[in-house]
């Protein structure tokens, strides 16, 4: 398994996608930054606080950017094996099909966390340069934990994207799916039924001020269940799939 993960990392060398994903991670902090600066210009009596910068950026990620950006990197990491026709070589080495999925999942977990930490650091740097106020150690620890936890929750939704990628062997369906579910998050954002919508559960569990109507265990069962079930379907489907 160690060798498989190592070779997954070699495959990233000189790949533009890593850079693109970091640029994608910058979208939330940069947009939030200009939004807060603009608001402050119109309301000079307000202060530019790190707290609102961290929380607004997080909101942007968990509501809109996260699902789509992570779908993009997931699709890239899986679909390139079909598109560049490298999968047949790997499987005739032989590399176990399930092991291959797991190694890619491990890399994806790291990649998603890097993106979130990069977004966090970007907030910190931009805020420091622009003189945002109110930062302290407990806030840093609190928001690092929140960003990492958000990454973990969004990661639990990844196997469903993998499944669509493997089924269609194309970038378009999984990305279209991610846009569709993101629209769902925006639509259900204020609804109490967000607790039952897997792609909305990260919002419910990490955004401050969300009213939790139903026991949180239901949401855990739903998001955890989706992870396990879609992963199992991936394993079964990919193990038995003919590679033409």
């Amino acid at each position, binding site marked *: 398994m160690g060798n498989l993960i190592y070779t997954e990392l*070699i495959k990233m*060398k*000189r790949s533009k996608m890593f850079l693109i994903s970091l640029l994608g991670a910058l979208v939330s902090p940069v947009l939030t930054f200009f939004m807060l600066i603009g608001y402050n210009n119109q309301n000079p009596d307000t202060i530019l606080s790190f707290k609102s910068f961290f929380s607004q950026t997080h909101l942007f990620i968990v509501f809109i950017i996260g699902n789509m950006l992570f779908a993009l990197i997931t699709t890239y990491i899986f679909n390139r094996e079909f598109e560049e026709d490298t999968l047949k070589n790997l499987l005739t*080495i032989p*590399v176990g099909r399930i092991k291959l999925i797991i190694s890619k999942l491990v890399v994806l977990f790291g990649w998603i966390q890097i993106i979130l930490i990069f977004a966090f650091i970007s907030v910190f740097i931009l805020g420091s340069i622009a003189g945002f106020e109110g930062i302290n150690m407990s806030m840093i620890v609190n928001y690092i934990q929140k960003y990492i936890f958000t990454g973990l929750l969004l990661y639990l939704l990844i196997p469903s994207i993998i499944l669509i990628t493997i089924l269609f062997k194309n970038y378009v369906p999984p990305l279209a799916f991610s846009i569709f579910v993101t629209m769902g998050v925006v639509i259900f954002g204020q609804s109490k039924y967000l607790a039952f919508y897997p792609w909305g559960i990260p919002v419910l569990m990490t955004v401050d001020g969300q009213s939790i109507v139903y026991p949180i265990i239901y949401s855990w069962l739903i998001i955890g269940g989706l992870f396990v079930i879609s992963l199992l379907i991936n394993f079964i489907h990919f193990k038995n799939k003919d590679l033409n």
Partner: protein
Amino acid sequence: MEKIIKAINLTKQYDSVNVVDNINLNVNRGEIYGFLGRNGAGKTTTISMLLGLIKPSGGAIQIFGKDFFTNKNEILKRIGSTIEFSGFYKNLSALENLKINARLIGIKKKDAIKEALNIVGLDQERDKKVGNYSLGMKQRLGIARAILHDPELLILDEPTNGLDPVGIKEVRSLIKTLAENKQITIFMSSHILSEVQQLATKVGVIHEGKLLEEVNFAKLRKNNRKYIEIDVSNDGKTAHILEDKFSIEDYEVYPNNKIRIYNKHDKIGSINKKLVEKDIEVTGIKMSEDNLEDYFVKLTGGEIVG
């Protein structure tokens, strides 16, 4: 002789159509087996089954004398292969691409990558990104990847597909060198007869999923399909005389009253005499050999590329 590949009634069905239909393959150690068939005949599907990429709908495969499906991993480690156009990570160099295989196979030999690149003549281009490689270079790199771990069996799917004449010549000589110098058993598919003819010691002809023929080239040449062609004024009457008076059944009637007789060549004088006696005008007699191209074209009903 030790059987390296044995396929028994191998079948693959898609939507109730047998794209590979009950084929039996026998490849012995040291052979270069040419798997000949036109595009869409079922060659790649068969190879994909031999490599475990596609599950057969029926039949069995034995490789190195063992059942493939119960010993798949162990068997695949002893095989090198290329399928269709070899795929590589375009953002990586040739060296980095081969490092992935070397790492995953667990190759301990220090110079294995260098040696493989040397054999295919890509040592000087090893740091170039594969995305900038020509098709011919990619095909050669595919072979380098296939021989990286000193396999006992090489399975090559259309190794010269899409190459220019120089590239074809290079890959052909590479395959020959590998078979001669490394004693690797080679199973290669092609839709080009001349390629198979120049390289293979045995040929299997697949057409519409069925294996029509599996024969040693040496035997085929020995049989050589020698014939006598006679030009007559009446082919129907001639055919009747051949069967009735000379018990000849191995003959073929061609357009323009030409008849080819494949055996009993010593009887040609008597045949000629009898035909004249029966008022059949004989305007030409010539001895010829059916070339292999004619033979295979006839076997498949056309479209094998010479």
